[in-house]
């Protein structure tokens, strides 16, 4: 975290080359986001979301997993305030990202901070924090960060548009089992998490409570299940670490 702008070995990388370097390093993650963006757009109609609402989410919210969650909730008739609260909970992890980026952004002008904060997705955070962490004396890494986020943003919105267009062009797309695409996608996302006992505890608890608390009003069952799952994970992790504490 040493600010190396005062070292004499400072390298002069141009803003443009840093911008494209950031975009290039984000390429694999951009490819990974393509199916998500298209599926998100294609499912919107089935979920009962308008074109404007789905496109608006990609344009202004720009947070893939929470957009899917919001769509799933909208499909089951959840009132909008509950969707906003759930979005808050799902995206709360981004607080850790901004906490990590604070020292890197601290000397940037205000407008830069706002732009980079808007684009602080999981992908761009992962790429940018690695670049910032390299003590190579290069200055202007915010251009690298910007290149990464612009590439992710354009791709995400283009893919959403493609999906929306496909959904509109082939309305029978919902008969191709697309109402199952959402649970299938979510299962595919959750499985890689299941590498530890606390994570299993969290997921099993959340699943059980989601059924038990399903009857609660305003879809509060979801919040209850998520909270119970998180608590189960934290408690279980604590139990395991206490067991092998003697270090």
């Amino acid at each position: 975290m040493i600010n190396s702008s005062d070292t004499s070995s400072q390298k002069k990388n141009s803003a443009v080359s840093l911008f494209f370097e950031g975009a290039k390093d984000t390429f694999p993650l951009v490819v990974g986001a393509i199916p998500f963006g298209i599926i998100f757009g294609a499912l919107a109609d089935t979920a009962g979301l308008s074109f404007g609402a789905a496109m608006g989410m990609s344009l202004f919210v720009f947070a893939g997993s929470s957009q899917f969650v919001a769509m799933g909730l909208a499909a089951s008739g959840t009132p909008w305030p509950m969707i906003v609260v759930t979005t808050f909970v799902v995206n709360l992890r981004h607080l850790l990202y901004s906490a990590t980026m604070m020292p890197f952004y601290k000397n940037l002008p205000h407008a830069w901070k706002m732009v980079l904060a808007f684009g602080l997705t999981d992908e761009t955070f992962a790429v940018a924090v690695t670049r910032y962490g390299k003590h190579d004396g290069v200055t202007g890494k915010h251009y690298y960060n910007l290149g990464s986020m612009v590439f992710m943003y354009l791709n995400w919105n283009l893919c959403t548009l493609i999906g929306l267009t496909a959904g509109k062009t082939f309305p029978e797309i919902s008969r191709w089992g697309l109402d199952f695409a959402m649970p299938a996608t979510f299962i595919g996302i959750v499985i890689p998490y299941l590498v530890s006992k606390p994570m299993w505890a969290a997921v099993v608890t959340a699943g059980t409570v989601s059924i038990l608390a399903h009857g609660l009003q305003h879809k509060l069952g979801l919040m209850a299940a998520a909270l119970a799952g998180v608590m189960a994970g934290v408690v279980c992790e604590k139990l395991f670490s206490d067991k092998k504490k003697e270090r």
Partner: protein
Amino acid sequence: MFGTGITLSEIYMVAGMALVTFGIRYILFPASGRMQFPKWFEKGLGYVPPAVLTAIIVPSVLMPDGKTIDLNLDNPYLIGAIAACIIGGVFKNLLLTIVLSMVVFLGAQWFFAAG
């Protein structure tokens, strides 16, 4: 063509989502210095995405009509979900999991509709 058919509550939803998401990503930056969260908070956040997603998956698979639990094996959502878990666990590939489990789901749906 933007905005076609968007309803007022959808506008509130998108605006609210945009506001809270940007708020979370931005709120720390006007402050200077560093930020340390309590350990339990950081740990807890790691469990949020799988817990929330599971809490959405399970009812949508076990209660396809939104009211009654359907644990029968002629529930195509349940068949598809079991397939997704197996395929995902074996191949650890997201796209493959989605595509193959949808094929299983469609097959089950077709089979039970025909039978």
